């Protein structure tokens, strides 16, 4: 381990050697990629399978290898943060895929002056402006490029006026849609549909004054049948075991899928290794 630590020891970035190491690393990386590229085609599938396996190996091993008594984790545990950093940093490099897909499409629309090019242009402008001001908000403490006050207030305008209120407004739309959905869905078409409807109505009524008022006068001995208590019963004693059973199934499904993916046993058009 100490040799590895020694080889990969940090070099102060002021030192010229840093840049040598930096560019050498990139070159070596590209070299390996080039090497992989000239390998015969048959080698590609096993390589992909191997990389997939290695990708999952760390977390799996870290989880399964026993922990010596008196320790917080096994010998792999200290690298947990490093591992998640590598994953998230690498993940960030894929952000370009999103930008190419989204901005590329709207850029094409704009330059070809398609019917909706104005909207596409707006989108691109908003993207550029928001990126600049998000970065400025973090980067320009002294307000080097534009006065800090202007920078702050433009950012506030875009963030609070735009992003957060649009977020909230879109979220609030569900308030409309949930009404039309319940109007359409809760019909007694079948026995099952009536279960769905009855429990939804009971729970709804149990949550508002309307419900409390409806069954307010029920004698104390029959407290259970007060709407709010019925509603609580459904949520606490029927919903929770049903939900638990469903999640067990889902968890096992996820476990099976991840085992298949990890060991390259997954079958499907993209995943198929048999072909």
């Amino acid at each position, binding site marked *: 381990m100490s040799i590895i630590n020694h080889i990969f020891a940090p070099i102060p970035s002021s030192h010229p050697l840093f840049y040598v190491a930096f560019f050498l690393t990139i070159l070596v990386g590209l070299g390996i990629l080039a090497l992989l590229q000239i390998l015969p085609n048959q080698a590609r599938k096993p390589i992909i399978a191997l990389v997939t396996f290695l990708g999952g190996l760390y977390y799996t091993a870290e*989880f399964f290898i026993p922990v010596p008594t008196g320790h917080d984790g096994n010998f792999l545990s200290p690298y947990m943060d490093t591992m998640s950093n590598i994953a998230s940093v690498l993940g960030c490099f894929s952000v370009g*895929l999103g930008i190419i897909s989204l901005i590329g499409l709207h850029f094409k629309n704009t330059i070809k002056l398609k019917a909706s090019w104005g909207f596409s242009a707006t989108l691109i402008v908003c993207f550029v402006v928001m990126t600049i001001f998000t970065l400025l908000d973090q980067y320009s403490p002294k307000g080097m490029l534009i006065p800090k006050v202007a920078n702050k207030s433009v950012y506030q305008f875009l963030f609070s006026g735009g992003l957060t209120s649009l977020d909230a407004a879109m979220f609030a739309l569900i308030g409309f849609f949930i009404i039309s959905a319940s109007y359409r869905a809760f019909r007694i078409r079948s026995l099952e549909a009536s279960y769905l409807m009855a429990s939804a109505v009971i729970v709804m009524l149990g949550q508002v004054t309307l419900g409390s008022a409806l069954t307010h006068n029920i004698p104390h001995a029959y407290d259970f049948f007060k709407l709010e208590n019925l509603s609580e019963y459904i949520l606490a004693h029927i919903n929770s075991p049903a939900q638990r059973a469903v999640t067990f199934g889902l968890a096992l499904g*996820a476990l099976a*899928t991840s085992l298949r*993916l990890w060991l390259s046993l*997954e079958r499907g*058009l993209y995943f198929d290794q048999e072909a």
Partner: protein
Amino acid sequence: MQHASDNWNVANFVVILSVIILFKIVTAQKGMKTPFAACIGLFTVILLAFTVRAHWWGASIGILIASAFLLFKILTSRSDRIPTIRRIAGLNAIDEAVGRATEMGRPVLMIPGIGQLDIPALQGLNIFGYIARSVAAFGNRTILAVADPPLAGVGEEVIRDAYAAGGRPELFNPDDVRFISDRQFAFASGVAGLIEREKVAASFLMGAFFAESLIITEVAQRTGTIQIAATNQFTQLPFFVATCDYVLLGDEFYAASAYLSRNPTLLGSIVGQDYAKLLILVVIVLGVIATGYMELVHTGAIHDSSATDSLTKVADYFLKMFR
């Protein structure tokens, strides 16, 4: 981050579930059965032997017996029988939905959830592969909307492969695989607009969905879209049931790829999942009995005697295994 160190026996349980499932997956493949399966079994036993040494005796012996049983099953089972699985209504409707979209000359929309590149999204994409292939065979257009940049990459490959497999590679348009936004409600607003403007005729929502599900399904409902949905989020199931034409409940989602492909490997996996489910069921029933028994011992309803003493020990062991 959860670590097995807190509870080593829990890890054993996960191992067993994994082994059951894996065993079924592996034995379903032709030719690969015995050596690979035996390796897995051996791996498990070695891992569990670790446990016996480092940890807690009673429970581990139980687990060893269980894995010995498994190993026996692995070595003696047959792989030439392809299992049948029960009917899943929502999946039978896929062809109908795709066919109708083609008749109307309007595109098919697919969304693998709003999560990141994770297991539900990949399962969704896997199912979409099969659907997109039949969309391609019909000569229709598929729009894939994703909420995570790498998914745009994987999705593009999946749909391209599907169009090639459907015999119409020339119909694939990379612009139809769209990354919309990684922000939940920006994504919802984009999809809502897309459904209206592209006049989507059939939509498939399969992956992790959250509150935005209702926005997407209600807008699609209004435009007369046939909707088939599946999700790993229990909280969104009621809304899908209320607004979609067909819903894959619970882990029908994970069974879908096996159902559509009839691939022995995937079917084997489903059988493995069933066994694992059964194991959970048995553990819960045993746990309930053990808990009740211990409760009675504590309250003095059962008196100590040599006969009950060993029973008490067993129940106690069992409960400690999961604590």
